């Protein structure tokens, strides 16, 4: 029972960045609540899958695919391009910390000389960042690949 409450709370915290970054990208005002819902949904789904012992990349991929499919329905109903919904929703999953750590270890390798610890941190963080990014992008692309088969625009 306690687990579900924390999950819900975390999802609500994840909805705030989705709205905030949606505002940076100037999402139309009517789409903001849906962005919040999407952000909360993807984060909660990923946490749930992580809880069920899936790997980080796989659960990110499944969550991104889900929001991609949902985005197709939403964009049909409200006549908007899909990125308006999907991109702010996946913002809470973007591997920003990994990317920064990779770059910082790169800079420090330049100033302090190459050591094993720095090199392994560079490679590890870089691999994490790229693979998570790849998972997100592939998840978002899957629905539109299905629809390009039909030679017909989505909206």
């Amino acid at each position, binding site marked *: 029972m306690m687990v579900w409450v924390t999950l819900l709370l*975390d999802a609500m*915290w*994840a909805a*705030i*960045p*989705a*709205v*905030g*970054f949606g*505002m*940076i*990208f*100037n*999402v*139309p005002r009517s*789409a903001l609540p849906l962005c919040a819902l999407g952000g909360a949904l993807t984060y909660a789904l990923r946490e749930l899958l992580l809880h069920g012992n899936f790997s980080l990349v796989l659960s990110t991929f499944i969550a991104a695919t889900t929001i991609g499919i949902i985005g197709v329905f939403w964009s049909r109903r409200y*006549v*908007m*391009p899909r*990125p*308006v919904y999907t*991109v702010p929703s*996946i*913002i*809470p999953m*973007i591997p*920003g*910390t990994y*990317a*920064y*750590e990779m*770059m*910082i270890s790169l*800079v*420090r390798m330049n100033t302090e000389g190459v050591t094993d610890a720095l090199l392994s941190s560079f490679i590890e963080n870089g691999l994490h960042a790229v693979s998570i*990014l*790849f998972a*997100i*992008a*592939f998840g*978002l*692309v899957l629905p*539109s*690949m299905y629809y*390009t088969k039909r030679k017909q*625009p989505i*909206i």
Partner: protein
Amino acid sequence: MLLEYGAESRLIEQISSRLGVALGCTSIQISLIPSAIVLTTLIGDASVTTTRRAQEQPINLSIVHQIVTMCIAAEQNPRNIMMVEQALCNIHANPYPSWVLIPIIGLSCAAFSHLQGADWIGFGITFLAASGGMLVRKELSHRNYSLLIVFAFTAFVCTLIASLAFYDNLSHSGHIVLSSSVLLLVPGLPYINSMLDAFKGYISMGWGRWTQATLLTLMSSLGIVLAMGLLGLKGW
């Protein structure tokens, strides 16, 4: 047809050709490189080629949305070029006021820090740092500095404020505060767009955007490293 406000390439291509057909052209061919659009219009037998240079603009999905709406309206009553031109004139940026934007960005970065397990003092410091960073970013991009410099300087300010957490051991989770207060600078949309473009067959656009996003990340980490070097902090 300057559709470079952060839309993905496939959308740009589809929209232009649909708009062209709706306005009575026979066919439209388009070629994209990261900084320009080449567009050939075929009307009957005559063909017209135009090249437009795309300036670097802040990401604005609401403009993309308005263009898509206009395209659908043009498809519903074709050959009405007056209406399309009027709609193009009516597209406006419609930005959110900064007194809403700054606190909500602070709050979202603070939410990131909370999700990664910072304590409440760390939460407050992250809020302060991210809001300050957002203020700096808005002011600098208002004055038309290059995006790279804006990012580096914002990261510098963010890290300076966030390192308050180490002062007098104010918060027990200083490293989390430090890393999540610069998250407002992650170029998420360029990364995602580049991946999407590459997957859909626009390899050169994908690479161009990937390089741009990597440069932005590099510049902001330079800002972080500079601030950490000034304060003598070690590591994350």
